[in-house]
């Protein structure tokens, strides 16, 4: 069919298609370059000397690559200590919130009771509530009960499930066949063991998507640790942002750049490794 319509103008069409493709690839490559630019510049900045970073007409490339900046970033501040704090909080929160959200999601997907519709409505509506609006008064309450400068807030947040992830799990569990739990009920299983033994083992894709999403949130969060934790218990995000200063209080931008590359790269790697599940999770929750 296409052959008959294309035949009379065969050559011009082919030329037009080729130029079209050329334009398409040019646009694609330059847009991608533009998107990678900021990160590339960050890496490059981490390889310059302080003088090169302050030079007034821009000093495009470092004269020699200052790889030692990356080593110095470890010694200027307790980089590993902050990274450990970040890791503890992120693992703690991501593990707890994934389990609790799966648990709650199972309830919304597989069980019902009077009031379920209203509760689900509240769950969806609470996604529209900016975290920042509740965070500030929550901070005052945490201060009152002595939980400032501890990791308890992340435990509590983790235990109480995140609406976005609950929704993710609900969508997933709702699509699983009914026979799964019917057979289990006949065998005398309670809902708790149905959840643990039947639903969870089949949910690795969503579990890992949820874990990665939660881990990335917490690793990237700046404001909660900034508010809740003191300077030596705080996370890498806060340290990278605020701790790279001289005794006089002037920033050390080349070390800061090197440190923030090392702060960002783990997240990029996690994303690249787990890309498929991550993206699938993002799009299911976004669509429905």
């Amino acid at each position, binding site marked *: 069919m296409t052959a008959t319509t294309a035949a009379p103008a065969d050559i011009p069409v082919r030329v037009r298609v080729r130029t079209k493709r050329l334009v*398409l690839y040019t646009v*694609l490559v330059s*847009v*991608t370059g533009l*998107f*990678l630019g*900021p*990160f590339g*510049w*960050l890496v490059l900045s981490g390889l310059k000397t302080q003088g*090169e*970073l*302050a030079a*007034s007409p*821009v*000093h495009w490339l470092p004269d020699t690559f200052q790889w030692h900046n990356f080593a110095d970033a470890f010694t200027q501040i307790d980089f590993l200590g902050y990274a450990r704090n970040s890791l503890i909080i992120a693992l703690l929160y991501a593990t707890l919130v994934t389990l*609790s959200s799966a648990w*709650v999601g*199972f*309830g*919304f997907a597989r*069980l*019902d*009771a009077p009031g379920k519709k209203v*509760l689900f409505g509240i*769950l969806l509506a*609470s996604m*529209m*509530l900016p975290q*920042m*609006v*509740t965070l*500030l*008064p929550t901070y*005052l*309450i945490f201060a009152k009960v002595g939980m400032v400068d501890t990791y308890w807030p992340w435990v*509590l*947040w983790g*235990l*109480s*499930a995140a609406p976005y992830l609950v929704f993710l799990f609900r969508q997933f569990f709702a699509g699983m066949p009914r026979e799964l739990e019917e057979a289990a009920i006949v065998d*005398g*299983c309670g*809902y708790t063991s149905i959840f643990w033994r039947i639903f969870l083992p089949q949910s690795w894709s969503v579990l890992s998507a949820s874990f990665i999403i939660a881990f*990335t949130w917490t690793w990237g969060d700046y404001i909660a640790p*900034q508010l809740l934790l003191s300077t030596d218990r705080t996370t890498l995000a806060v340290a*990278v*942002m605020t701790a790279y200063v001289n005794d006089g209080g002037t920033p050390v*931008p080349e070390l*800061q*750049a090197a440190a923030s590359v090392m*702060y*960002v790269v783990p997240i*990029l790697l996690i994303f*690249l490794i787990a*890309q498929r599940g991550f*993206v699938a999770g*993002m799009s299911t929750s*976004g*669509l429905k």
Partner: protein
Amino acid sequence: MTVDQISPVADRPGGGRAAPSDAGRASAARRPRVSMTARRHRAFYLFTSPWIIGFLLLTVAPMVYALWLSFTTFDGISPNWKYVGLGNYRELLNDPVTWDALGRAGLFAITSVPLSIIAGLALAVLVNRPVKARGLFRTLLYLPAVVPPVGAGLAFKLLFDPNSGATNGVMTFLGFEAIGWLADPYVRYVLLMTVLWGAGNVMIISLAGLQDVPRELHEAARIDGASAWRTFRSITVPLLSPVLLFQTVTGMIASVQTIMPLLLAPLGDTSGVTTVPQSNYLYMMHVFAQYFALGRYGYASALLWVLFVLILIATGLIFKFTSGVVFYNVDPEAKK
């Protein structure tokens, strides 16, 4: 009581009756059913309780606490705080700084949200073409969206540094004047660009939607001689409209609570708000300043409640005005 009553009904000691009557069998079968329903109800609340309790303790309670604080002069230090009724709200309405910050936040929302949606949609259409290494392009374009805010803020600060940044380097090379990107009034454009940098998010979600658009629709349009733009406008956009609505709402909420102005500002005091240039002094920055720099918890809580109500109104309006426009492609077979 327990579910094992269901299957082995026949084996249970039925009271020694050899042949149970119809009525007896029916009630024996029904009884576990009823307790099953009760069990399901109890189980539902058992399963949802972590969220319900968490929501009450970590969302409702702080909001109520903030509402109470908003009627007081509480500052966390002075023991002589007092109840002032609507005083904070009256002060807020008469404070030009509040109105300016609100105006800037509104402007930021109505520029950044549509721009990032358009950019994300354009990227989605671009990488939905059959090109080589399509997956690689998708990954690379999405990557900035996972860069944590602190990394993104620092990258943009270095890129737009008035002296040593690449942007001014390119501009002077092309014969333009260098610009003080990180100061008033230009820093607002840098803020906007940090949002656009994350457009991969919209791209990925729209891409999933684009792939759901039935092929026949595109083919039918092509046979009818519709132009590419016309096809995009009349087929792709309507079918993507639920996704776009979702992006509008989440984008608006993200724009309200962004801390990027703080991260783009020069390193200042711990809360940093005092160094944020005027044009990036959005509503949330105003809240921060009142909260941390001044410790006016009562007044800041009033600001938060006003914001909360405004977001409710804005979300309501978005849903109202899009209810006739958003097209839900409901598959009749998928209906339950």
